[in-house]
């Protein structure tokens, strides 16, 4: 299991050092600093073995987190734990920065003591942790409160405490999708997928039982078979989507999903991620990028890029940004664009073209002349792909929320009393067109 956990700043100074196992000594702290942080190279592997000691490391802004072990640990678990550790810290004190860590080092030690015992991760749900790791001491707790805490930390529903009350029962559902694309210069889709998340903010009283439904093809088809078959064919044909795979927050009863494909759960309080999913079929690609790069002699490049929006004209895409890479030996750039603003950013080796808003079924274009310095470098310019960023108010996968039912038998509110909000946001993931 994990033998020790260290946090460093970018200079390699130790901010937090917690050793769980006898086989990890103080020299491990230095070994990592010397071999990884001070190496100042690109990280060639997130797992580094130094003198039979394995270091699992992740970096968050300037901060390095390293878990250390000498055993054959579950590597996936160690990384999951490091991410979770970051989540917990963020939930407690915000951004992970040197300053925040130094300011909260006592708290971090307390957390590390709680969520990692002898190197074994323990309950790390922030909701539960916040009930008893407060930096306030636990003096004022009554016996009932104490046993409530312990049963929550160890219990079956570790993510929610009893006795939550809201005057107004309300929940917000965000369907957040990132659409990923890799397109050839000729416009052929090399790979495309949507990875989506359903994020829920729940403000519900008591221990509500929830059931979530979406236009999952498997479910719709099953129901279609049961109901009259004539109109089922019509409705399921277009409106349902094929989900390649999905994963759920630990509150969802997985065995029920496996057998009935129904998503039922008791939600944590506040914001959390209910599910993640991935689709590859029938994706709506909101934008098409058509690049044209021409080399004029050895010292000039002509670039023309057309973007076309491909969704309902009534919808508006926002925060559109097209990034056109330029060679390292660029000396000057002239840009003309029809819409928005374009700028050559020498430090990023790219022309960045920004458009605030763009409606569906529209087209826009940018052309640029790039002057190059003559070089004797034999290696050709690698031509990185043109990438794009945007935000659209629909789900590119076609996912629709069909229902979210809330049942709370002990309290006197019903599904109808809950105010529900649903929002769809599609963003660009890695949206690239080769040129």
């Amino acid at each position, binding site marked *: 299991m994990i033998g020790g956990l260290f946090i460093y700043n970018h200079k390699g100074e130790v901010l937090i050092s917690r050793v769980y196992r006898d086989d990890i000594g103080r020299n491990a702290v230095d070994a990592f600093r010397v071999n990884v942080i001070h190496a100042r190279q690109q990280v060639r592997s*997130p797992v580094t073995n130094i003198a039979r000691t394995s270091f699992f490391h992740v970096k968050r802004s300037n901060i390095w987190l390293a878990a250390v072990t000498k055993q054959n640990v579950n*590597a996936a678990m160690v990384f999951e734990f490091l991410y979770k550790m970051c989540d917990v810290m963020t939930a407690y004190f915000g951004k992970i920065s040197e300053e925040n860590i*130094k300011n909260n*080092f006592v708290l971090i030690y307390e957390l590390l003591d709680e969520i990692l015992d002898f190197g074994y991760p323990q309950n790390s749900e922030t909701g539960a942790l916040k009930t008893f790791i407060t930096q306030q*001491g*636990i003096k004022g707790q009554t016996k009932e409160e*104490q046993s409530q805490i312990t049963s929550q930390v160890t219990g079956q529903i570790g993510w929610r405490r009893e006795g939550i009350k809201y005057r107004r029962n309300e929940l917000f559902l965000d369907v957040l999708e990132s659409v990923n694309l890799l397109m050839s210069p000729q416009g052929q889709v090399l790979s495309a997928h949507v990875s989506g998340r359903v994020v829920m903010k729940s403000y519900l009283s008591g221990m509500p039982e929830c059931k979530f439904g979406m236009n999952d093809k498997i479910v719709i088809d099953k129901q279609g078979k049961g109901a009259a078959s004539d109109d089922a064919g019509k409705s399921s044909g277009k409106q349902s989507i094929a989900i390649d795979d999905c994963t759920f927050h630990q509150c969802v009863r997985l065995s029920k999903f496996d057998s009935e494909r129904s998503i039922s759960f008791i939600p944590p309080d506040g914001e959390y991620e209910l599910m993640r999913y991935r689709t590859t079929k029938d994706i709506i690609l909101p934008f098409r990028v058509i690049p044209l790069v021409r080399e004029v002699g050895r010292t000039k490049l002509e670039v023309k890029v057309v973007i076309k929006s491909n969704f309902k004209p009534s919808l508006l895409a926002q925060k559109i940004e097209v990034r056109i890479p330029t060679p390292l030996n660029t000396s000057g750039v002239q840009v003309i664009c029809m819409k928005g603003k374009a700028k050559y950013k020498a430090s990023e080796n790219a022309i960045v073209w920004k458009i605030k808003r763009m409606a569906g079924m529209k087209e826009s274009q940018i052309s640029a002349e790039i002057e190059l310095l003559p070089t004797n470098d034999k290696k050709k310019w690698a031509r990185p792909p043109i990438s794009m960023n945007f935000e659209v108010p629909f789900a590119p996968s076609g996912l629709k929320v069909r229902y979210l039912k809330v049942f709370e038998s002990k309290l006197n509110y019903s599904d109808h009393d809950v105010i529900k909000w649903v929002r769809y946001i599609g963003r660009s993931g890695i949206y690239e067109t080769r040129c």
Partner: protein
Amino acid sequence: MTDSKYFTTTKKGEIFELKAELNSDKKEKKKEAVKKVIASMTVGKDVSALFPDVVNCMQTDNLELKKLVYLYLMNYAKSQPDMAIMAVNTFVKDCEDPNPLIRALAVRTMGCIRVDKITEYLCEPLRKCLKDEDPYVRKTAAVCVAKLHDINAQLVEDQGFLDTLKDLISDSNPMVVANAVAALSEIAESHPNSNLLDLNPQTINKLLTALNECTEWGQIFILDCLANYTPRDDRESQSICERVTPRLSHANSAVVLSAVKVLMKFMEMLPKDLDYYGTLLKKLAPPLVTLLSAEPELQYVALRNINLIVQRRPEILKHEMKVFFVKYNDPIYVKLEKLDIMIRLASQANIAQVLAELKEYATEVDVDFVRKAVRAIGRCAIKVEQSAERCVSTLLDLIQTKVNYVVQEAIVVIKDIFRKYPNKYESVIATLCENLDSLDEPEARAAMIWIVGEYAERIDNADELLESFLEGFHDESTQVQLQLLTAIVKLFLKKPTETQELVQQVLSLATQDSDNPDLRDRGYIYWRLLSTDPVAAKEVVLAEKPLISEETDLIEPTLLEELICHIGTLASVYHKPPSAFVEGSRGVQHKRLPGSAGSGESVESPDTGSAAGVSEAPPAVIPSQGDLLEDLLNLDLTPPTTTGPPPPASSGMQMGAMDLLGGGLDSLLGGDLGGGPAMGTGFGAPPAAMPASFNVPVSGGLDDLFDLGGGVGMPMGVFNPPKTVWLPAMKAKGLEISGTFVRRAGVIQMEMTLTNKAMSVMTDFAIQFNRNSFGLAPAGPLQVLTPLSPNQSIEAALPLSTVGPVMKMEPLNNLQVAVKNNIDVFYFSCQYPISMLFAEDGKMERQVFLATWKDIPNDNESQFQIKDCHLNSDAASNKLQGSNIFTIAKRTVEGQDMLYQSMKLTNGIWVLAELRVQAGNPNYTISLKCRAPEVSQCVFQNYEMVLKN
């Protein structure tokens, strides 16, 4: 208020100041001081001098302060054991505290203090905590048992904590169960043979129930523990799989990977014809693909594991090629791993896409990545024959870019392509030669030299090219030196007239001026070969090269199996068994996959069903031929022999080399004490005595040293069939021919006795063969001392070559011969044992064997019985070896010895065999697999003949 200020105190006399503050009456000040101490401790300052003062702060109601003091204690108790005792009372008292959080904190911290005296006091509180009413305390106590065991294993056993821990597996709280499982698994690891984790269907059921309810981490502990269980039969295996599959939808990647591990392992036991087996295979792909949308570090772990999974079960991800396409912004470690998997998944169906991608990658920035991409193009060419042409042209395009490392890498892979498809792409050699000067890496230089040597006859200025390398011979790496030596010898054999000087030069450089024994040895062998028998030298050096394997970098099957059992762990990331990087006894246990249940027969699990049962592979039953591969994979093979740099000739001449040395050694040992100096002069002599022509035998010490004697080169126990009458005198006007075939040191001979039973003298003998299945033809004229008088017999040996015209005969080994003398022409036919055609280099690499066996369709397999044979397997193996039937591996299952053998016919056809020998049963079973199944019958007859004589 922030805490960062504690990091900034670096004044002198700091310890003294802290001491004062720690002893202050004010609570706030005390707390501040302890925080400063912890901050100093974190940055590595030694604050152990403050031990008594810090411990004094322990008695407090303030939990935050208490935790800080505990943190300090854990760090320094070991260096101050006597003082640490001061803390015991507080711990013991805290373990009785009404607040469960404090009880747990005390027992948790106490376990971390590795001082013997403290552990003694720990036992009683721990015992109580293990049975505490609060689950939070129990789950903490469970881990504490593992801590205590790490400090003092004996104590834990004596105190009976292990039994209490086992009871906790039935606890009502899932988190207690999970921690107990984790603790027990860890303790069991250091006692490989204990019956500690007593896994039986009841406990498994409990674990599976807890699995649904506990935290994500607990699920990982339980799944990792489940993976150590061996189900009793396929039904149990299926029911566990059914209950584990829902975990594949968990958001935590580690839960998913651990579930994959359990499924991959238990799937081995499911019959392949079961519907559920197919369903399960389908269910595995989507979660594996989903892992690729995790954070990059986890992607890396996932990819390393997928690499193992596609080697074991390629069918799972064969349609998912696209998801492994590299993204521009992927970290380099993700890119490299994806590339590896792309090559593994490349097939005829997706090759066009893959090639287009690889070409794209070859223009990227990262040198390692570009190299790997170029190499990948070469591997695609070798793997998918249809794509070879496109790959070669892509590689040529890349060579035109003149980017140094791209060119070098391309040349290395083109060499392999030449090996795989000889006489197909030699037209590109000219382009390669243009880039000779830019090659500065040994591997690329060696590859280029190999190409020049191999195709010396087509390269006009081959001698010049090689000579240019020779100039800096001593500065080259061994790899290049060896290759250069071989290439020049090849060149000499192909163009002897113009290159004598060159070959002498390289031989003297290799033998005299080098202190590398490998190089010297190879030099001497070539020298000796060339000087004794240039024809033999030609056969050895220019021998046909063995096939190269289509899959490269495959993990050795036994290791792969072990790694599959370690999915998700560090071992699977390093692709090394845990014993390679874990110190001490932990994890040294080798894990194995369970045997398959095949045709309904169940694998008996050991009664104990414990961890020990896992470490010893359950006895596997070999139910049918279809499963042979599975069993092959289970073979306990000898460690892989490392193959050197790619001198293709060396494998061809291994045999000769061995004999040479054997012969030399014999005469050395046979000589008197004077042999010492004789040896010295022997080795020293040749350069001086080097005659202009190689055909004149070298005289002096060297001659003795290398004197082979007639019989050397004949392995003992070779079976040669006795002579039979081929042509009776009645049919041939008085000429009787009886004969047989022998193979000696790679040369096939037809040995005949010619008897004149007529009344007149016979002269002018000549012999000719009809076209036959393997192109046998006389390599020279029939040497018969004429005349042959009446009633006289004469022995004639006719060396045969296998390069004559080919025609399929019935039976396959039939040979039609015409013999002429002064009287008439006579025809007869005879059958030669097919073992005559078994080449000396017929020993296949184990890897290649496995791949080939798998590759040959089952239709090509035939099975025979050999009756009444009373040899044991070793004797049989030895006997067969004499006929160039090589045993690659042996395995014993339930008293049945399985020999895996290979042989190679002179025309390059490989025959693979599995021979089963059961002690006490005189009937052997042999299964033969060959791409040309017609030879099987002959091969079988040959086995029978060899084994029964």
